[in-house]
């Protein structure tokens, strides 16, 4: 049996999250939630947390963070929850629907205008 690559072993990934696997249902990070750092990295901080803070000086989507860190989305969500719960990042969640649950017509119009201007 060949030795699995470093990034192929899911168990290893969970050492990054201290074995925790759920990011808490009260903080649902969407793939496209935009994350913004609220502080600078500090000495002694977990390297992934520090990397996220550097990456999020400007708004950065969860999926971009996952790609940059080369980590699965679910692991990235756990790391982000840590930072959110300690106030080190803020989260701008997508707002695409009106209260009825249907997509906001204003947003669809803005998307159309943006695409036509490409």
């Amino acid at each position, binding site marked *: 049996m060949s030795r699995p690559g470093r990034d192929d072993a899911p168990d290893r990934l969970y050492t990054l999250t201290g074995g925790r696997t759920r990011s808490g249902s009260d903080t649902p990070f969407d793939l496209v939630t935009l994350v913004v750092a609220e502080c600078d990295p500090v000495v002694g901080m977990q390297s992934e947390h520090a990397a996220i803070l550097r990456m999020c000086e400007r708004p950065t989507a969860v999926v971009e963070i996952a790609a940059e860190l080369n980590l699965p989305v679910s692991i990235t969500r756990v790391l982000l929850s840590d930072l959110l719960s300690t106030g080190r990042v803020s989260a701008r969640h997508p707002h695409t629907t009106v209260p009825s649950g*249907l997509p906001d017509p204003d947003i669809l*119009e803005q998307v159309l205008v943006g695409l036509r201007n490409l």
Partner: protein
Amino acid sequence: MDSVTSDARAPLSASADNGLKIVIVGGFGVGKTTLVRSVSEIRPLNTEETMTQAGEAVDDISEVRGKSATTVAFDFGRITLDTHNILYLFGAPGQERFWFLWDRLFSGTLGAIVLVDTRRIDESWYAIDRLEHHGTPFIVACNDFGGPPHTPAQIREALDLDPHVPLLDCDARSRESSKQVLITLVEHLQSHYARHGATAAEGALQSPEPAL
């Protein structure tokens, strides 16, 4: 001022506050990543989600130990629409195991584009079935691979497509053509939800409160 490196990330504007999703679904080699690349402002990136063989995203480390874990990878690109709205385009594999992750990854998506190779139409059946099941509005775009021409009627019949669902040809390598595919989807979403809105308004007319 900014130093330019070959792999520099293009940061978003500080005012960006609304991420939006559109998913491009299609079989292997149908041109999903090509389409994303044609319109994306960043080089398409790749990321992944891990799930157990039972088809569930990993929530519990004991599941990973008990069953071997599988990874589903997907590509994405990005379009800054204006100072607030950022559109993310996801190229998603249409294979069966992927659909177990749909709700986790793509709930709240505006809509989907089913990218079809007309030489392999049958590979799109499953994706269309799943999108209908999830209630995700979609359009069908046939990527031009220079195969024998089919009439739109033939393709509609082969896909058993609802007459409301737009069908168009495209060249995923072309920015203009790919842009037109996206515009067609969003116009379809507008009319799709206008019909839904009309249904809701009819309901309101029957209520004691006068509509309008």
